[in-house]
């Protein structure tokens, strides 16, 4: 608990005695300039992750959570562009870093796990070829030791009979196995940061539990920081240390997992949590958020949630600024649910 609280205070501008976060994102804006207008996919997003910490980045489709992940790795293609803001990886700015430096970092110090393992593994290469390649791209190492490293990584993520799997092609493995291979590749070079973009969405519950278990154990053991992008709040509730909720390109609420889930402040978080079915609400009508996620083209100024918000009024036509209402709780809202918290 303590280091987190300390780090929270650090973000409110006290540069001395900080523990250096693995990643700091400040006022990041990634826009897509289309003919129909600018899509502000990521609009003024700030957050940080400390070593060994798991940050859950939650939001619905189109909220910009994946684009945030891609922006960190410099994987935004035109017409998309990081318009402004800073992404500091262990103090080094990635936005201004040359492509060679980014290539050096990607897959080495920062790794990404994608949603669909069939898309990330090369179907015509054996697993060992792909894994050895990932090692040798970043380190001088002979094939034999690289293969041994790959073997160890597969064993670590709980793949039975790793020696056989190394000689297999991706199509010979099941979805859960493939995703585990993808995770093993992400961990191969012992990165400082892993960005996991909905890695368990396509998997069954039992396999999801296995993957969550492994991710959690690995972060604890290696001190790797992790950003877990998901639409499923129940998944991050059991996994993450802190949660950031995104809506229409902005982070609307951040805080410790317990705080956000038990005492959500932003009306969107309140609605989102209310719409998750759970045991104590069986058979009742679910609290639903009216309407749907807004069109990101030509989003009006002001709070993007206003049209769906039960508390929206004229003040909401002005974009709410980030405010730290409670220690460690940042929120972007003119009418937060503060009364429930104080009650």
């Amino acid at each position, binding site marked *: 608990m303590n280091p987190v609280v300390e780090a929270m205070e650090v973000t409110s501008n006290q540069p001395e005695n900080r523990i250096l976060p693995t990643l700091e994102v400040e006022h990041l804006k990634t826009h897509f300039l289309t003919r129909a207008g600018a899509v502000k996919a990521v609009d003024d997003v700030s957050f940080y992750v400390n070593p060994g910490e798991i940050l859950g980045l939650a939001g*619905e*489709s189109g909220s910009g959570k994946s684009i945030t992940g891609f922006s960190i790795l410099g994987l935004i293609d035109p017409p998309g562009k990081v318009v402004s803001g800073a992404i500091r990886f262990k103090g080094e700015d990635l936005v201004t870093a040359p492509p060679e430096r980014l290539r050096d970092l990607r897959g080495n110090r920062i790794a990404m796990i994608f949603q669909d393992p069939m898309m990330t593994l090369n179907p015509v290469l054996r697993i060992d070829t792909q894994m050895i390649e990932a090692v040798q791209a970043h380190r001088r190492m002979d094939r034999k030791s690289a293969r041994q490293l790959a073997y160890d990584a597969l064993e670590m993520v709980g793949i*039975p009979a790793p020696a056989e799997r190394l000689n297999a092609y991706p199509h010979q493995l*099941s979805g*859960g*196995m493939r995703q585990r291979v993808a995770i093993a590749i992400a961990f191969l070079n012992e990165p400082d940061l892993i960005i996991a973009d909905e890695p368990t969405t396509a998997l*069954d*519950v*039992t*396999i*999801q*539990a*296995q993957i*969550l*278990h492994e991710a*959690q154990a690995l972060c604890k053991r290696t001190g790797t920081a992790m950003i877990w992008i998901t*639409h*499923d*709040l*129940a*998944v991050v*509730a*059991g*996994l993450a240390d802190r949660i950031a909720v995104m809506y229409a390109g902005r982070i609307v609420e951040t805080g410790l*997992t*317990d705080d956000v*889930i038990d005492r959500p402040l932003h009306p969107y978080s309140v*609605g*989102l*949590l*209310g*719409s*998750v*079915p*759970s*045991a104590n*609400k*069986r*058979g009742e*009508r*679910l*609290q*639903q*958020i009216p309407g*749907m*996620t807004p069109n990101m083209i030509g989003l009006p100024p002001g709070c993007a949630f206003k049209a769906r918000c039960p508390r929206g009024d004229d003040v909401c036509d002005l974009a709410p600024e980030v405010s730290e209402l409670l220690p460690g709780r940042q929120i972007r809202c003119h009418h937060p649910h503060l009364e429930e918290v104080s009650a």
Partner: protein
Amino acid sequence: MTRARTGNMAGDVTAEEKAPGANTPLIEIAGISKRFVKPLDIAGRIARRFGGGPEAETVHAVDGVNLSIAQGEVVGLVGESGCGKSTLGRMVAGIMPPSEGAILYKGRDIASLRGDDKLEATFAVQMIFQDPFSSLNPRMRVEDIVGEAPVVHGLVSRSGKSDYVDEILTRVGLDPALKRRYPHQFSGGQRQRIGIARALAVKPKFLVCDEAIAALDVSIQAQIINLFMDLRDELDLTYLFISHDLSVVEHISERVVIMYLGRVVEAAQAEDLFAAPNHPYAKALLSEVPRLDQRKQDFRPIKGEIPSPLDPPPGCHFHPRCPQSFGPCSIERPVLKTIGPDHLSACHLND
């Protein structure tokens, strides 16, 4: 009908108790099986003729399932991918013929019905699909997607189609003014509503919802779940709700059936099942569902993966992954037994 062929008697007793006055369940699935056989190629057939060669590969997608569903009931069907839950749903909806067994609508075998009786049974059971993007014809306007079937079958006249479509769209929460549009002009949640409207257009009694909300965002999921519950109250619908999402099934279902590799392993009232699952697979499955109220949990997963249905393990299908497996598990197939009121489970531990 070889109803007693297996012991897989999911809820045969239960429905009769549950629906007083209507002793015949609305839908009864009797000893149903579905096998997919991959035929041998020519080399294989020649080799077979000379007394050798490979066997034809057979997948037992569904293996002797019994289930009866009473009027007005919501039955949740859960299981991992590959357990046969979708195949079962498709057979119930009449999209796929069963290899063995029968589906009875109001006590009569659907396969033996002819003429108007057959039409009635076909209309009565409708299906809602998982993917609202591929289940709607992209070249048809919403008006035709929803209105075609009732006009063709004479449920409404051609001139009355427009009003009829308006009425149904309003019922599922869509603005009738949008009916001239094409599916691609709608969002995922709206498309799913169109799919529901299409199913409702022929005035069904029974809806098979195959992962009907899995492709939707959380806030939209809640809207569709609420819509399902409203429709049930308004139209007295019965549901078979197929899903891998246990929290959704727990929310909406009265009775829950859990399948593993083509067989029913446990069936019970939702409350009982979630409070006290009996089968080791059910226990493992329920404990692994991520929940909002479980923080920083230590995930303790069941080992291994669902085995290939081409070559299922003998005896109890779950025994290679089961932490409590013992002697008979690898030899004898466990029978579904009543272990409590309205609670069936297929496990040797109950013997």
